[in-house]
């Protein structure tokens, strides 16, 4: 459903994403992991069509995001890591606006707005300006906006940040339900427990390159790690030395 072909992104002389090739099959919940600055957000933003790749291409459902942007983006719901929304719109107005961007309006959209705000417990805030929303409420609103047009693919960057445990649980159920109905999710997260419990497949990126990809079992085989958890696997692949050094520094400081 999502295909990244030799994707590269340079910022001046710095290469943020380095010849990444990845296939996310339809109906999969795919985890995209990596340390800070590894290139996760840049990759996801290229998939969403916000950044243009330096080389390579992104295909969504067979449509090239750069060559056929309208067809590709119509299938997509994107949830960014930072919830910047129009502060002076109400929650319902924002959702209506997003539906409009996808060419949808009328009673169907109104019903969908009510439905999503109900699910995310925002109904009481439906007609309040977004500027009065908390961080978590904004995050819920953005998640709703990504679902308003019934996308086939959801690309989500750090979905759990700012969500309370109830909403986090709701989101997990929602993603699993979405995938079970044939939808596809590509999700970047630092919460390894969630990735391990939720994702069918996982890719780990470091220094702009994919260092491992597959199911948990495949990752263990690739790294010859035996029966270890995702956290140990992640540290092994991305270098756990930094964490040990940090602990040492903190010890010295006492």
């Amino acid at each position, binding site marked *: 459903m999502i295909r990244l072909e030799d994707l590269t992104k340079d910022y001046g002389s710095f290469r943020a994403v380095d010849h990444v090739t990845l296939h996310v099959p339809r109906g999969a919940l795919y985890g995209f992991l990596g340390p800070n600055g590894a290139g996760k957000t840049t990759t996801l933003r290229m998939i969403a069509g916000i950044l243009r790749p330096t080389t390579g291409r992104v295909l969504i459902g067979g449509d090239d995001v750069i060559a056929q942007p309208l067809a590709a983006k119509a299938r997509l719901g994107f949830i960014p890591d930072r919830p910047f929304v*129009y502060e002076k719109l109400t929650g319902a107005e924002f959702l209506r606006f997003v539906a409009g961007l996808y060419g949808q309006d009328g009673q169907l959209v109104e019903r969908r707005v009510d439905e999503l705000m109900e699910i995310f417990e925002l109904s009481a805030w439906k007609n*309040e300006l977004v500027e009065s929303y908390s961080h978590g409420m904004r995050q819920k609103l953005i998640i709703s906006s990504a679902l308003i047009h019934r996308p086939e693919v959801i690309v989500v960057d750090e979905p759990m940040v700012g969500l309370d445990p109830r909403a986090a649980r709701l989101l997990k159920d929602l993603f699993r339900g979405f995938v079970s109905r044939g939808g596809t999710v590509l999700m970047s997260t630092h919460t390894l427990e969630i990735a391990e419990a939720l994702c069918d497949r996982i890719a780990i990126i470091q220094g702009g390159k994919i260092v491992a990809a597959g199911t948990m079992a495949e990752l263990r085989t690739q790294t010859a790690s035996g029966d270890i958890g995702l956290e140990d696997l992640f540290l092994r692949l991305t270098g756990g030395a930094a964490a040990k050094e940090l602990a040492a520094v903190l010890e010295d400081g006492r």
Partner: protein
Amino acid sequence: MHVLQPKWRTALTRARQERASGGTGKAVTLAIVGLLFWAAVFGVLFRVLRYFRDVREIGALLAGKLLSLTLLSFVSVLLLSNVITALSSFFLAKDLDLLVSSPVDQARIYLAKLGETLLHSSWMVALMAVPIFTAYAVVYHGGLLFPLVAAGSFLPFLVLPAVLGSAATLILVNVFPARRTRDLLSIIALAAAAGVILLFRIIRPEQLARPEGFRNLLDFITVLRAPASPLLPSDWVTKAVMGYLGGKMDWLPLYLLWSTAGAALVLGAWLHGRLYHTGFTRAQEGAERFVRGGVWGRALGNLLKPLGAARREFILKDLKLFFRDTTQWSQLILLGALLLVYVFNIRALPLFRGEQVPFYLVSVVSFLNLGLAGFVLASIAARFIFPAVSLEGRQMWLLRSSPLELRALLWSKYWVGTIPLLVLALAITILTNVILKATPFMMAVGVGTIILLTLAISALALAFGALYPQFETENAAQIPTSFGGLVFMMATVALLAVVIVIESAPVYRYLHAAVNQEPLTISPLMVGAFLLVIAVCVTATVVPLRIALRRIEQFEF
């Protein structure tokens, strides 16, 4: 200084980055424009002051009055500017959480933030003062010590409005929560409009321009001698400066300036200590919950149905954001005041007093009025259309990840800005031409040209806004004062000049025929000139829009 260190270090790094990324051209443009502006101010004032100097008895009085009036207008600008700047630097700035939570003395925070407010709100006035004082120094032979006297009196003059402005903001924020700036800025905007009118009343400039209107010379001199108010710091600066230039240095005004500034600082710090904490706490709450525009939104939504869901929702969104953002709509109040002054000035032209004024003079005024109207429209476009692209910055993730065509985005932005501008352009052109009793030919030329100019000015504003975006600015009112805003204004002035020069040929033909009472023949030159104006304006509309589209396509976030 330590508190402000991150700010000036950021400024230094930004300047270094600018230089590294080939920003020299920008610096040179700014320097040239700045120097030209200085030269113009100096040139005009130099001539006026030289004329005053040669007027016996009252020459020095006139020069002093002029300085006093200029400084008085500075005081009002500075007060307003400080009130607005203090709101963001004392209450809404991003570094406040860190500063307030740090073990930093309240007085240090006050002084640092006051310094920041003063710098941001007063730099333009300070730069403006340089050619003014220079002209006084040159005409009245100020000598080497004059810069010291001027700076010594001007510095406390800048401190006073900064202290008063931030104190006013501090009190207002304690009454209204800062984030509900609607109330606050409405007050500020209304106060500004009232200030302008008040200033006009205090100055009574028409009396100074017509000394014959006074019963005798004594009355005239009395008006000149009378200070605007002996309690205003502008009068103290005038007395200090004019006293020095007249060879009779009066130290009292300098004492008054410095002691008042010192006392104001102490009182300001005391007030800050008393009220800042509650004000800052209030600034964190009170996001607006009252939503306006529901009925209008629905009515307009039905009206815009034929445009399709994407464009309709985009236009509705832009309109809602505009009328719900106080920093944007409050500018309409000032705009209204300025337009009133504009129409009033046209009315006040001494064209229809006493003897019959030749019709060609009226026609020339009506024609040149096009340039003035164009300039007014450009200033409005700089305020309302230029920031349009910048304001989408933080939400661009949404627009770019959705299947919205960027052409549709640009189209919506263009027409949302252009239609009100066009209505305004037609209103002021028709109104002023009716006041001037312009002929049907001049009316037709005026209306046709202003329509073409408005379409081009909107496109230029949008394009320069896209070429010089300010995605990080939270206050829409600050966007037009950027470098891009300056370049836009320069480009628009150039366009106005080109159009007026081209049209002057057929207008001259028309006036020539009318004065000689010959029938007007439509010559190829006339047709060619009007066609050329159409071509210039259409090009100035289409090319910038294409450039803007290409630029928006290249944006990366």
